[in-house]
């Protein structure tokens, strides 16, 4: 019956892909598969076209940048050497990595704590807290930057990792996502732990959290990505080149009215690599994770 662990795709759901995979069908259905694959592949190729051009441009000399050809006439790694030889690049990369990682960890912790509380506890003010948190999605960052700056200055957070990170330590998106995911954790699990003498914090941390691991993986990717590419706030809050994050640093490849696109593309290509790695590691979890959220309104 229903004793399958909810964290996994329910058994009955699997055959839609895996079983079909295992079983080559003959006849017209096979052709349909091939056509479907080809069409999806073509669509996928269209999707990555701009990315292919990004990489292509990063391999071009400046004078060739404005040509339409996908394959550079004279491919060069010059741009990569230029970007990577700049000692500051590593500095920025490192800053970004630390900040994105720490922020991700913080989000995983707090978003899930809040999501869990909103999902599993009944207390006065619950709906209010939820709507209030959700409403923070409605304010564009652009408008918050100045108050944040003044705040950072008052507390002496300017030009520090903490200063760059603090606005993103929790997000409403994560809270909402995690709240959905925790709905699929049966209360029995929590009650069993309660009987075993764990306090509420331990129950959340040791029982509930491992059960939503896939969801955490999905959230991790989204948060990491968001912080990895964040630009405006890191720019405003940093005062020294050493503290720049990668996007802020890379945006320096331009002056008053001219931009070195080949370098921008190179930087973009390089900075996609960590996110790609994060995605490749966690992508299976995304599928599973969101399944579990069930999004069952």
């Amino acid at each position, binding site marked *: 019956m229903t004793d399958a662990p909810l964290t996994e795709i329910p058994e009955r759901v699997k055959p839609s892909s895996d079983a079909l995979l295992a079983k080559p069908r003959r006849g017209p259905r096979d052709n349909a598969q091939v056509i479907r694959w080809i069409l999806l592949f073509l669509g996928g190729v269209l999707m990555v076209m701009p990315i292919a051009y990004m990489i292509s441009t990063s391999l071009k*000399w*400046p*004078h060739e*940048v*404005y*040509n339409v050809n996908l394959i550079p006439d004279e491919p060069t790694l010059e741009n990569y050497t230029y970007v990577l030889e700049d000692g500051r690049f590593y500095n920025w990369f490192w800053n970004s990595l630390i900040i994105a990682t720490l922020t991700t960890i913080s989000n995983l912790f707090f978003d899930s704590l809040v999501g869990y509380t909103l999902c599993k506890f009944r207390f006065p003010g619950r709906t209010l807290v939820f709507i209030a948190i959700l409403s923070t999605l409605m304010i564009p960052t652009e408008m918050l*930057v*100045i108050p944040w*700056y*003044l705040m950072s*200055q008052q507390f002496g957070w*300017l030009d520090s990792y903490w200063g760059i990170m603090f606005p993103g330590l929790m997000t409403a998106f994560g809270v909402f996502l995690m709240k959905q995911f925790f709905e699929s954790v049966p209360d029995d699990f929590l009650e069993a732990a309660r009987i075993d003498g764990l306090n509420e914090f331990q129950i959340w941390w040791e029982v509930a959290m491992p059960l939503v691991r896939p969801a955490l993986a999905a959230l991790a990717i989204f948060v990491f990505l968001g912080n990895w590419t964040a630009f*405006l706030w890191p*720019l*405003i809050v940093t*005062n*020294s*080149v050493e503290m720049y994050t990668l996007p*802020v640093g890379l*945006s*320096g490849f*331009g*002056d*008053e*009215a*001219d931009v070195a696109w080949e370098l921008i593309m190179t930087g973009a290509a390089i900075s996609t690599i960590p996110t790609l790695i994060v995605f490749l590691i966690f992508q299976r979890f995304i599928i599973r994770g969101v399944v579990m959220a069930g999004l069952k309104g």
Partner: protein
Amino acid sequence: EVEIEYWQYFFDARVEAMEQLIENFEAANPDITVTMTHFPYADYRTKVAAAIPAGEGPDVVQLFYGWLNDYVEADLIQPLPADVFPAEKIDAEFFPMVQAMKDGDAYWALPTAVRSLALFYNERLFEEAGIEAPPETLDEMMDIAAKLTKRDGAGNLTQVGITAGMTAQDHHWWREGLIRQMGGEPYLDDYQTVNYNSDAGRAALDMYTSMFTGDDAVTAIGFMDEPQAAFKAGRAGMHIDGSFRIGSLNGTRGLKWGVTELPATADGTRSNYSSYWVNAITTKAEGEKYDAAVKFMEYITSDEAMQIWLDVVGELPAKPSVGLTEENANDATFGPFIRGLAYANTTKFANESAQRQLMVEMVERITLQDMDPAESLAIAAEAEQKILDEYYAD
């Protein structure tokens, strides 16, 4: 032992030049350390605007001349000490446009370098088309442009004679160049009143739009996205741009280019636009720091600094005495710009990007909506006046 902070926007050559200046300065003043920070150009203004009012940031800051008023009004920068920077002396030594920085007897800020416009041209395309000399007049410019324009079988432009686009430097050329050359005066009352909705303005606009309208258009707005891109890619014969472009064109492989003064009218009237970035001491600098900042200001506005700036960045010295040396004025590259400074004007903007945007839209109304140029010009003038009125209201 004093440490002061200096901010400017990031551009390789500027950073390099400033590093040299700081090194020299520190050698001469061993008890002062200067730390420089730079920010991406596109967001420099935002950054400075967020930081300085908060009392953060530098002791000496580089600002665009057009922003200065706001900083003065908000008490964010302090006047230069009259004893070190006597007004009469600066009036005499610097290019006259610098006087916009003066308030009564004191200067608020001073530039190291200034910039002006000139006409870049592609020597290889000129050779191919058998053109021997760069244009001297607007008519010649149009003729040459026509010769350099190429189209494919479908009539689409594949090469333009000259670039066009108000988004780049053309709005300066139109305001301070063409209108004045047509005998007009773009603004009155110390740039508080718009005055280009006139015959001269109309003539300047017609001249400008004739480049990209009609069957014999020699260019298109947005050809290859950005004018300098088209020029760098060797697909534009001519290109009007500022002296700051020199560095990036020098780095473009396969491009052989020359530069000449902005074309004159048939009767030889010339006019140019100049602008500059100034250095100012913020109100944050007090006591020792203030003294150090003054010393630093003194050095970076010295003749020596200006020459270094010219050599490294390619920007023009702010003093005629440095700029207009025989050598500089006849330099094949810098010459046209330096000579242009002599007849250059500097627009006092209330909100540069908003005012530029009006020029962009003025042209868009004509090209995209087929509006009568006169009408479009009137709309732009009215809108710009509104911006100015609002700005000068208090």
